[in-house]
Structures are given as C-alpha cells and as structure tokens.
C-alpha cells in the first residue's frame, strides 16, 4: 500500500513538472532585430536573407531603415508575414536616387519584428545576398544584426 501511495505521488510530481515545462516552452516573446549594412561605397540596392537556426521564430513585421534614399518599406513577402508563416524572410530594396544621395558606412537598412517561442536563446542566420552601387557594381559589404527582446508574455 505504501508503495502504491509513493508511486502516485511520484506520478503526480512528474505530471506537474511536465505541465510546467510545456507552459514554459509555449511562452511567447517578442524581439526587434536591427539589420545593419556596412559598406565603404554608396549603396543603391541590397538584399539579405534572415532565418532562425533553432526554429521557433515567426517574423511578424518589418520596418524600413534610416536612409532617406530608401524611403519606403523594403520588399518582402508580405503575404507570408501576414499569414504568420514566415519563419525566414528575404528582404530587398533599391533606389534610383542620385549617387550623391546614396548612403554609405554603417547604415540600418531594416528592423525585423519577431515572435519567439521556447526557452532557448534565439540563434539567427543572416546572409547578405547582394549590395550594389548606382552603376550596378557589386560592393564588398558586410551585414550584421542587433537584437533586443522587447516583451515577455
């Protein structure tokens, strides 16, 4: 009888721990990720691809960067983001502004808004597909990100 009671207690504890772990995993967090392009030459067009290495991420929004030459929202798959199915994203933009108006140096080209799930720290993959000058010549530029978890729920 004592063994049965002990088994029941252990079983209850296991169930409680499992429920707690599941709740912990389903907790949603939101993050804003700034994407920076570092270019020694003025940039007229750029394209990058962003994804999560360990999954459990959805892109829920995107806003444009700080350059006046790239005034509008960049091109991205709006339908996938609106459906809530975008676990990766391709973002691109171009401008026909004059060469003297184009940005160079370290510029924020976009900010991604993400919804993260799970307890693991997010790991992102970011790849610069292309960056070109006004004449269409490829620039030897680099891309980086800065992320910040903005809210917990």
């Amino acid at each position, binding site marked *: 009888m004592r063994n049965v009671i002990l088994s029941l207690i252990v079983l209850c504890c296991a169930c409680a721990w499992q429920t707690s772990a599941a709740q912990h995993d389903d907790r949603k967090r939101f993050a804003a990720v700034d994407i920076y392009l570092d270019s020694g030459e003025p940039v*007229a*067009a*750029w*394209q990058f*691809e962003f994804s999560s290495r360990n999954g459990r991420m959805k892109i829920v929004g995107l806003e444009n960067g700080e350059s006046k030459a790239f005034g509008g929202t960049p*091109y*991205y*798959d709006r339908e*996938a983001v609106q459906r809530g199915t*975008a676990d*990766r*994203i*391709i*973002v*691109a*933009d*171009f401008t*026909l502004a004059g060469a003297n108006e184009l940005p160079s140096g370290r510029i924020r080209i976009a900010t991604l808004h993400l919804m993260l799930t799970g307890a693991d720290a997010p790991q992102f993959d970011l790849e610069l*597909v*292309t960056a*070109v000058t006004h004449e*269409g010549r*490829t620039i030897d530029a680099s891309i980086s990100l800065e992320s910040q978890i903005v809210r917990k729920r």
Partner: protein
Amino acid sequence: MKPEKDRTDDLPQPLIEALESSDRPVSMITARVDREVSAMARRHFSLRRRPARAQRLAWTAVAAAVVVAVFAVQLQSPDPEQTSLYTDVDGSGRIDIADVLALARMQGTEERSQAELDAFASWIVSLARAGETS
C-alpha cells in the same frame, strides 16, 4: 339521277368495298377520355423529362467545375509572359534585386513602369519562389 353511283361505276369493285367499309361513324372522344389521355401523356413526359433535367444539371456542374479549375490554375501559375521578364538582367549569374535596379535604369524601349519593377522585386523576395529555386 345518281351522279355518285355513275362515278363509282368506273372504279374497281375491291376499292369500292374498301371505301365503303372505312365509311363508319367516327368514335366519339368524350371530354373524360380526353382528360385521361392528356393526364397519361403528362405522366409519361414528366417521367421522361426528369433524367433530362438531371443530365442538364450535371453538365452545368461539370462546366462550372471546369471554369473554376481554369481560373484557379491561372491564378496560381504566374503569367509566363510576365515571368519571362524576370531574368538575370545584369548577367551576374543569379536573379536578385540588382537585376531590378538594372532593369529600372534601362532607357528607351526597355523602360519599365514602377508597377512592373515592384512586381519583379516582389517576385524576388517571394518565399514560395525562393523555396522552388533553392
């Protein structure tokens, strides 16, 4: 005077007999018989019409399904003429936003509208397209 008799004298006897035998009083069709015949006819044709109507409905449904399928296929598959524009314009070996910039900077007959450039750029960032090509 018997003019009719005179005229029949020239006819052969079997014909005269056949004509006389067919000269009987016409049987009377009463209103009741007429109604019954009419009702029978209606029943008969109503039974025949049902499958015809069902068949017409079936053909209409098939035609509607074909029309819907054609529309669905057209909506899903991009216009081949449109996608043929989406090429490696700058000759870099891949299609990316630099091709849109190159297309936008083309002058003369190759000049494109903003809507066409937007469509090209949207096609480049489409995850479905990227999934197909990757």
